[in-house]
């Protein structure tokens, strides 16, 4: 295999792996659920994107024709990640998970739980 292609695949793999690790460390270290929801998104988008593009480059190089079907997984993960995050946030609101005390606009959580629009005076 060409040296530069190998270097490109290695760099993409390492970027992907580091972002996946950062997402998991965030899942452990962050203090409450609403901040924890934020961390694994990096693993889903950049981490998986890097690993899948590395796989795409390697398969294209091995087979001699363009291999695009890894893009399917990337696209699928990019579409489904916001839906999952939305459902999880709604579940946390419904179960009245405690937020950090310094979270801003906490009074809006009541309206969101009741699925009502915020009252005009509630805006910060």
């Amino acid at each position, binding site marked *: 295999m060409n040296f530069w292609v190998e270097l490109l695949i290695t760099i993409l793999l390492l970027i992907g792996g580091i972002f996946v690790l950062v997402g998991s460390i965030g899942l452990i270290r962050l203090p409450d*659920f609403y901040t924890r929801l934020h961390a694994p998104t990096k693993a889903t988008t950049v981490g998986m994107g890097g690993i899948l593009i590395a796989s795409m480059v390697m398969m294209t190089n091995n087979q001699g024709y363009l291999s695009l079907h890894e893009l399917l997984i990337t696209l699928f993960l990019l579409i489904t990640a916001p839906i999952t995050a939305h459902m999880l946030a709604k579940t946390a609101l419904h*179960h009245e998970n405690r937020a950090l005390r310094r979270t801003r606009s906490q009074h809006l959580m009541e309206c969101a739980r009741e699925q009502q629009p915020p009252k005009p005076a509630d805006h910060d």
Partner: protein
Amino acid sequence: MLNTAILIVSGILCVALILNLWRLLRGPDLSDRILALDTMYINSIALILLYGMHMGTNLYFESALLIAMLGFVSTVALCKYLLRGDIIE
């Protein structure tokens, strides 16, 4: 160089999976556990793809796609169950 990189990234992913498992076992709330499961299936997709790259075949791609789809559906079903007490009303 490539084989070493694949081994190193596999090690990183295993560490990430163990951290997720810690959150899954410890998570103070049910939604934390679901979030940990969601992250775990995404990391396992990456691990399967790395194994496919190591073996140099395209065979493992389909299983990765299947796990992506089933993982999404299962996460949404669990959230729906916690939200409404029922999955299909």
